[in-house]
């Protein structure tokens, strides 16, 4: 019984982590049609900023409970400073180019930011273990989970539901849906599409940075940590359907649960199972589970 409980809880925790990281990627693709590889950089930058800043402030005697606010503040700082700079300074001039060219530009930016991280923080690992253990732990049978893991589920829920609510219930969200549907018509209706691109890129990058910042207390923050997350995030949004918010949620849950089942019952398949699921989904739904039929412009 412990094992079944563990499969479910581990799957949900991993799904939450994946969803927080992937939701920004799918948002940016949905609105801007950019396969944004700098997403991994924002994840890593969020983690580095959070680990170094929180570590420094804790060393100076900061109240430990404030570290959660510092984690979020670090992510906010990274996204608000860097994302507008990249969108306004580089991507804005590339929107007329082919999607593949823009993807290559984001790949180049990813490589530059990877080296920038090494220049700023060096290659030695950063640790901030305090926030991970601060909230105590919860027992499920014989299994102990730090409450922080449940906090990560809460962050994923807030991110997903908040974004869904914004899109469905607010004026800004409805305007954004219009931009997603057709940027040209949106422009003709007087919507400032470029402004929405800026907001979307910044908010999507913020979600990646939040994912990195709140992962930092559970890992060793090291160079290249953005590489792994970008691969997994792509798997999630490809399974769910690129640009689909519910698709990202379902994709993350599928990946998380399938991986967890594999680890508990057939660990030798773990490496392979995520990509097996992705291949099977694409075999039957080439545009992902939540893709919708698109009108072709003639």
């Amino acid at each position, binding site marked *: 019984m*412990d*094992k079944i409980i*563990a*499969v479910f*809880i*581990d*799957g949900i*925790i*991993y799904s939450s*982590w994946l969803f927080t990281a992937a939701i920004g990627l799918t948002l940016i693709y949905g609105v801007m049609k950019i396969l944004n590889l700098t997403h991994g950089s924002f994840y890593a930058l969020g983690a580095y900023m959070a680990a170094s800043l929180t570590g420094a402030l804790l060393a100076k005697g900061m109240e430990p409970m404030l570290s959660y606010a510092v984690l979020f503040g670090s992510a906010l700082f990274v996204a608000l400073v860097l994302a507008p700079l990249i969108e306004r300074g580089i991507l804005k001039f590339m929107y007329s180019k082919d999607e593949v060219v823009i993807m290559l530009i984001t790949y180049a930016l990813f490589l530059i930011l990877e080296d920038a991280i*090494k220049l700023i923080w060096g*290659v*030695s*690992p950063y*640790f901030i*273990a305090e926030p*991970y*253990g601060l909230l105590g*732990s919860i027992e499920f049978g*014989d*299994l*102990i*989970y*730090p409450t922080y*893991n449940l906090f990560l589920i809460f962050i994923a829920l807030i991110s997903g539901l908040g974004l869904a609510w914004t899109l469905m219930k607010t004026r800004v969200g409805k305007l954004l849906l219009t931009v997603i549907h057709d940027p040209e018509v949106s422009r003709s209706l007087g919507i400032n599409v470029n402004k929405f691109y800026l907001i979307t890129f910044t908010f999507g990058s913020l979600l990646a940075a939040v994912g990195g910042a709140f992962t930092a*207390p*559970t*890992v*060793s923050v*090291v*160079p*290249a*940590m953005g*590489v*792994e997350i970008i691969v997994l995030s792509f798997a999630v949004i490809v399974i769910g359907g690129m640009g689909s918010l519910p698709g990202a949620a379902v994709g993350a849950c599928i990946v998380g649960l399938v*991986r*967890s089942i594999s*680890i*508990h019952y057939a*660990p*030798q398949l*773990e*490496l392979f199972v995520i990509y097996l699921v992705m291949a099977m989904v694409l075999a039957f739904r080439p545009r992902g589970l939540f893709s919708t039929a698109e009108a072709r412009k003639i």
Partner: protein
Amino acid sequence: MNHENGGESYMAINTKIAAAVAAGFLVAAPLAQAQDAPVKIGVVTFLSGPAAGPFGVPSRNAAELTIEMLNNGKVPAPYQQKGLGGAKIEMTLIDEAGSSTVQVTEFRNLVQRAGVDVVVGYISSGNCLAIAPVAEELKKLTVFFDCGTPRIFEDNSYKYVFRTAAHATSDSVGAALYAKAVKPNAKKFGGINQNYAWGQDSWGDFSAAMQLLVPGSSVTTSQMPKLFAGQYGAEISALLTSGSDVIHSSFWDGDLEAFILQAGPRGLFKKSAVILTTGETAMFKLAKQIPDGTIIGARGPYGVFAPDNELNRWYRKEFEDRYSVPPNYASYQMTQAILGVKAAWEKAQAANGGKRPDIDQVIAAFENSTFPSPAGDIRMPLGKGHQAVTESVYGMTKVVNGQMTVTNVKRFPADQVNPPEGVKSTDWIKGGMKK
């Protein structure tokens, strides 16, 4: 006097002599230069990526320190002669990050473009497996300083490749011997290892050795996450629910640190005896997170397990003075490899009448050699004299007055944890680990 006799004029003979002397100078000048020319050593280690912090940077620091001290003649006996046999050492540093394909390209660049005389490097077992045949093809003396897979010399025979650190079998067998010694009633054991050559070989040897040493024991679970996965929540749950008495992990780099950070708060270290075969690299950085009683190794007699000898006292002092941290096992292994090259080079030079040796002479001197290092005397008896063996050492962590220490240290002699020459590790373990 008739200088025209014999049909050859005096002038003509003089001209020939002069030409011969000039030609002699032309030939001799480069030879004289070659005798004193610097020895170029290519050093390859992780300068970026998750392995840079715990392994790459400490080993790079060790290489820089050791080469500088050798060039200044400040290393204790028997390494007091400057450089390599008096020739200055020049270091070219290369990042090991990237795929094995990238590393093969970098190796070719080092040899064919930078023109290095010796390559010392490689932490990743995958990279060592890829580089060894290329080193052989290019006929370049290459010394692996850290990578662990036993397959390098057990599956192939190389003339130009050496490894001055013991391979993974001694770590795994040592871990099994330690587990049996401190947990004599343990019957169930599990593992979490990275899914590539190092992790697979380490787990294979450990599980086989445990089943041999503890009759009736069984494997509960073998977790094999991918390298640099970073998230181990589900794997830790699987280990927690497995009922393992002993858990083996050969995790290294950021993966080891992430595993400790995630497994500690979940009580894994209290529920099972956890063996971290490379735990020494994290013991100071994560002193607060590693619970007392965790079994750690250093892949040999390195770091806190190093013997008290003059070379070690010199090494620790110089390293700590310069970098403000103690050298970890990756540092020790890098210095050991460079000292191994120096010992072989100077032995070959002495046998060559004091002249700069050629590469075949250095190889002949290196094979089956024994040379002193901060970790004690290093023997090269395996792999037809190309593979080192060392004793295997394990201990348990204990924080004393806020400082991380090791207790209950046990040392297993090299012959107890390594197969005899010519026998594959897996066959040796299955055959009862006979000496």
